[in-house]
């Protein structure tokens, strides 16, 4: 078998493994389905009335942002899964097998994409039910927005892979994800327009890639002025992947069971 075919086969076997566990871990299934639904309902009906989004219904403003946030965090299961694999010694087993060095992480990040597709279906369903509509969006715009969200999710899978490989347990991975990365999504245009933020925070939010990407998805789905946001959004996703994928693979090669 050529090394490329070997790599592809290993990745496929491991992606299958990651997906097989989902129906057996109801808590994970809930994370992918019920949690995004709760978020949409809470923001639309609890905060929605209090948040001013000039020119838009709040649900139209919110949905692109909340989809960006949910999909970015879709890869969080990779952090939890890898931390557990390291702790349980499974990574040792994989590393002692004559398999491709990148396959464990590629398998993880690819299965995340599949799970994110599931999340997208749920999010769109609840979004439409709550009153969301595409505005001035062609089929190409809608698809481009979806591709951008999935690309962002893929980039974040690598960030979470690195978090998982540096965590001594799933609990640590959880703490890192929710104290360092989760707040980042709030200091952006994901839930509210950045114009409403005080100086300092506003500049931070404007530089935040979550703002760039949320605004890019809005420009595709709501017909807001595009500026350079869409291109910048793809550049961000590409850059995050290009930085974090090699870091995660390097860490994988030396990581040891605790």
């Amino acid at each position, binding site marked *: 078998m050529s090394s490329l075919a070997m790599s592809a086969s290993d990745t496929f*076997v491991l992606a299958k*493994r990651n997906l097989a566990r989902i129906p057996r871990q109801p808590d994970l299934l809930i994370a992918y389905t019920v949690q995004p639904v709760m978020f949409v309902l809470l923001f639309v009906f609890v905060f929605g009335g209090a948040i001013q989004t000039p020119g838009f219904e709040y649900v139209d403003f919110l949905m692109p942002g909340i989809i960006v946030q949910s999909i970015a965090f879709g890869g969080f299961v990779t952090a939890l899964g890898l931390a557990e694999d390291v702790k349980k010694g*499974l990574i040792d*087993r994989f590393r*002692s*097998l004559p*398999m491709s060095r990148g396959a464990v992480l590629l398998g993880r990040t690819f299965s995340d994409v599949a799970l994110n597709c599931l999340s997208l279906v749920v999010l769109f369903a609840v979004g439409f039910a709550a009153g969301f509509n595409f505005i001035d969006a062609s089929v190409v715009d809608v698809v481009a927005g979806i591709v951008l969200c999935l690309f962002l999710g893929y980039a974040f899978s690598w960030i979470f892979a690195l978090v998982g490989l540096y965590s001594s347990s799933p609990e640590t991975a959880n703490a890192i994800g929710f104290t360092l990365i989760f707040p980042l999504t709030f200091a952006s245009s994901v839930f509210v327009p950045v114009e409403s933020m005080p100086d300092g925070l506003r500049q931070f939010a404007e530089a935040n890639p979550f703002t760039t990407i949320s605004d890019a998805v809005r420009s595709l789905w709501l017909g807001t002025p595009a500026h350079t946001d869409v291109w910048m959004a793809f550049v961000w996703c590409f850059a995050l992947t290009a930085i974090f994928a090699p870091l995660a693979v390097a860490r994988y090669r030396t990581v040891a069971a605790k």
Partner: protein
Amino acid sequence: MDQDAIVVEGLEKSYGSVKALCGVDFSARTGTVLGLLGPNGAGKTTAVRILATLLQPDGGSARVVGLDVVKEAAALRAKIGLAGQYAAVDENLTGFENLEMVGRLYHLKRQEARTRANELLERFDLVEAAKRPAKTYSGGMRRRLDLAAALVFRPPVLYLDEPTTGLDPVSRLSMWETIEARTAAGTTVLLTTQYLDEADRLADHIVVIDHGTVIAEGTSDELKDSVGGERIEVRLEDDSEADQAIAALAEMADERPTFEDHLVRVPVRSRRGAIAAAVRRLDDVDVGIDDISIRRPTLDDVFIALTGHAAEEEPAAAQPTEEIAA
């Protein structure tokens, strides 16, 4: 093949300022079981991790089936199986799925991987549990599944890192029987353990390591002989008769018998007829016997003798602290 399957020379590894291995040498002949014996933290697991290509040594060399563990790591991985105290199985997959996955990762064809998984489930007595997720397995079943996973590709060399640590006595015994069946099939096994009875039962050759150095090696018998031969132990009905007993038994003894902890100990050259002779002699002088037995030194005696010796070298034990200070 008459060469050694595992050859380790001057192996060194440090974690920061802590030296886990300070120049370890050992080898294992093809088709034999090498027992790596030592207390927790002696460096056993570090040695196994290096031999399994998981960790790079700082110095020295190691070759397994003729392949260098650093330079030829990729080729070596197809020749080794690794199982141990972690029982590295995916708890959300069934027993069958775990073995099938490992088979596929060894690049067996799908059908081959399935056939092999079923074979192993049968051999390891896991057929009934084959369709259940591994998280429902008992500790013993997980270890068996883990061992089965290590054997999927029929590796000529098998590393067992503390395979029975934490198991109940029944599971331990069944694990031993499973390992014995493997070694009978000609696999070279490197076994690490902190249980002396385990090394005694399974290993052809034993290397004792402590503080990252080899402190003794040999067969189980050689190690036991090194701390002395067999002895008769007599518990008297009345301890005040100890002197009489020692006098009566001195003639048959190799060295002068001793009396300690309510036991008269009589070193003897041969166990043949020794108990009958001792009973006769004590009966002749009217000394009552409560209990009498003959025993060989166990590996426990060896270990206490060896580590007791090591403990006298206090400066060596204090070394890591000094290094941190430096």
